[in-house]
């Protein structure tokens, strides 16, 4: 057992309102520089949609992630030693700037500085790369505005497995739905970017598993851009180095949540440390598609297990980190309650950003007893007798899951590598807790039914309350359990600090070298 600590994240998609505050927070801190204008280390996509860069999930185009060989080993789909050498002068699978979008601003100055003329001055869009006026072709969240058009929502790669009828059903008027998918670097356990880098510039930090690119070592091969199936490694055309989400490690080390999480309006983001067995990585990444999710979850170990604690300590993991792992909200969502799932586990990078899937739009309860409402409905609209169900489309308790507006097959293509059963399990849990809480707070649900749904999904009442608390009431320190970084220990490993002792505390004031 080789126990290591990993900072992991959980995004609760039911809570995301798609405000892009996270993206802006990240942009303002990290990617507001020349050469990275087009990069959105954090971006929010509308699903169904093609995302950013366009169709990033389609690995026939971008060749990201790992593929499983016949013999049960895995190899990078579009990078690695042989393939990298073959494409050493030109990597054909890189996204172009048009696949992201050409960053632009507006010539606002013209509004106040234009010479007098017959026409109102306008602020024309100007490319942030060339400085020339451009026609805006696309933006980083184009799906927001154009979802539903045949070009975007209907081209969602996750719909590949759906029949034409199922697809059409998703876009039926009055049944049309969407949800938001915020994305950052997954800080994977088996990162494609690290494996692909010919310069060895990318590494996974030992203490917390954050994946970083050493800017001094990067030689602009851009293999990581191809190898990352989530397209979360970007090339800075100005410095000639690749960059990616650093999970705001300077903030983490100081005990603050990353900027995107800190600023999240919907409070959908959770961050905590998890302990995993690094010996299992290779084996886990190579299991067949159907076992991927469970294999990945089984790598994550119980931080209360004395054996695990002992092995963790033997591996140099600090007590404070183990304690943080025990309080980790991500461990609860992912393991204890089994509600969160990795995004596209079939890419086999073992992402450590998990998503609580969306329960999808809740409809007002329309019943036959509600005469006024009923009169407004189409005569063919379905009616039923039960007056507590959310969804109006079925009378069966779990039927709504199978007949959700988004087919399970679609959700499973995103979160469970096609395993609809695993997907349904998570959605049922979400529903069960909602029904349970409705009984508690509104009271229009039968107590027996509330208890039955919990029992059906193997949740105790206490657990349901915990889920409810962490979902709806959690405070800052509940959502972000950041282990102390112990930089002082790292510092002591690198240099002798004993000479500071006895030599500080008194002296003359001197102007700092940087000037005052």
């Amino acid at each position, binding site marked *: 057992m080789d126990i290591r600590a990993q900072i992991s994240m959980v995004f609760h998609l039911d809570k995301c309102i798609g405000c892009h505050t996270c993206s802006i927070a990240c942009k303002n801190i990290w990617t507001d520089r020349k050469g990275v204008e087009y990069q959105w280390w954090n971006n929010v996509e509308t699903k169904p949609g*093609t995302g950013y*860069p*366009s*169709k990033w999930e389609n690995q026939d*185009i971008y060749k990201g992630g790992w593929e499983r060989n016949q013999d049960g080993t895995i190899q990078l789909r579009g990078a690695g030693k042989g393939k990298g050498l*073959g494409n050493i*002068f*030109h990597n*054909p*699978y*890189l*996204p*172009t700037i*048009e*696949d992201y979008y050409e960053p632009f601003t507006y010539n606002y100055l013209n509004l106040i500085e234009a010479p007098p003329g017959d026409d109102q001055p306008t602020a024309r869009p100007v490319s942030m790369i060339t400085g020339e*006026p451009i*026609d805006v*072709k*696309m933006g980083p969240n184009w799906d927001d505005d154009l979802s539903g058009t045949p*070009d975007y929502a209907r081209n969602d790669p996750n719909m590949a497995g759906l029949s034409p009828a199922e697809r059409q059903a998703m876009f039926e008027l009055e049944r049309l739905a969407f949800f938001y998918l915020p994305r950052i670097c997954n800080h994977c356990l088996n990162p494609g970017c690290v494996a692909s880098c010919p310069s060895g510039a990318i590494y996974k930090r030992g203490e917390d598993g954050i994946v970083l690119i050493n800017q001094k070592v990067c030689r602009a091969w851009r293999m990581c851009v191809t190898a990352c199936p989530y397209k979360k490694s970007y090339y800075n055309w100005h410095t000639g180095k690749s960059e990616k989400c650093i999970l705001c490690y300077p903030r983490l080390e100081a005990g603050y949540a990353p900027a995107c999480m800190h600023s999240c309006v919907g409070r959908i983001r959770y961050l905590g440390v998890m302990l995993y067995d690094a010996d299992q990585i290779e084996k886990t990444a190579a299991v067949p598609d159907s076992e991927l999710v469970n294999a990945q979850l089984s790598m994550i170990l119980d931080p209360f297990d004395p054996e695990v604690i002992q092995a963790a300590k033997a591996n140099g993991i600090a007590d404070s980190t183990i304690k943080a792992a025990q309080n980790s909200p991500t461990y609860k969502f992912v393991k204890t309650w089994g509600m969160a799932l990795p995004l596209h586990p079939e890419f086999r990078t073992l992402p450590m950003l998990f998503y609580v899937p969306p329960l999808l739009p809740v409809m007002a309860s329309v019943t036959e007893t509600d005469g006024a409402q009923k009169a407004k409905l189409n005569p063919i609209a379905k009616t039923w007798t039960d007056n507590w169900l959310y969804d109006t489309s079925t009378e069966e308790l779990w039927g709504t899951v199978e007949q959700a507006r988004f087919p399970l097959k679609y959700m499973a293509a995103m979160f469970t590598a096609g395993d609809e059963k695993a997907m349904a399990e998570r959605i049922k849990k979400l529903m069960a807790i909602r029904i349970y809480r409705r009984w508690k707070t509104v009271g229009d649900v039968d107590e027996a039914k509330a208890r039955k749904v919990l029992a059906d999904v193997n949740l105790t009442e206490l657990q349901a309350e915990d889920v409810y608390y962490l979902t709806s009431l959690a405070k800052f320190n509940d959502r972000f359990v950041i282990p102390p970084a112990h930089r002082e220990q790292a510092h002591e490993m690198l240099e002798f600090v004993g000479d500071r002792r006895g030599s500080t505390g008194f002296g003359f004031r001197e102007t700092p070298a940087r000037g005052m």
Partner: protein
Amino acid sequence: MNKTITLWTRLLLTASVLLSAIGMASPAAAASGEETFKKKCGACHSIGGGKLTGPDLKGVTERRTEAWILQFVKSPQKMADSGDAAAKALLAEFGFPMPDQDVTDADIKAILAYIAGGGGGGGGGAAAPAAPAAPPSAADIELGAKLFQGLVRFEKSGPACNSCHHVKNDAVIGGGVLARELTTVFTRMGAPGTSAIIGQPPFPVMEAAYKGRDLSPAEVKALVAFLQDVAAKEAMQTPVDYGNNLLIGGTGLFLVLACLYGLIWRRRKQLPVNHAVFERQVKSQ
């Protein structure tokens, strides 16, 4: 009014003629005439020393009018082109036109005064070192070849000869075609002429190129030795002329490379993912 101007003009003219006459007669002007002659003319012309690369200039002031000389020296080729019989005859006799000289009328007059004064007798090229009597030493030839190609730098960093000149010689790589080809220059001009031209280039472009970067006597000697060797061995040289083969070979190689690149990068992403969408979008230009 008219009268006044004429009067003034006459006065000025008289004064200038008088002044120039005084100047011509003065020793300073004669010295400058000698200097200029040695620097600019001596490489090709002698005064009473017989025909070198160009004609002997003894008595030239008696053979030609001053006006003719003034015009000719500045642009001999133009003179021949304009149909001047004497200039044509000179061109025919020596086979190549004298290079245009960047000198003023006063300079020429000073030179003429120097020539008229006997020019100190002797041959031209007073600055030229003594001609090597024996065949040049192998060391000099080798050094000359290196200097010619720029493999060894001139002491004062003058440009290498082959940036402008070519010689037919298997031992050295081809040179430029900006200036005269120098294979037989030694045969034509002999040691004094060659070394004089190298030491003090009379050609405006070459003069400008080596201004302040004069070659040392040792370098001149080495280059002359090299050129003598080149001229002597001319008949035995068989430089390879690839002719059109070079062009054809180059085109063939280009095609091979183009095919290779086409093969290696056949999966190149030609269009953005959303190309069809972009095509439909309204464009302002």
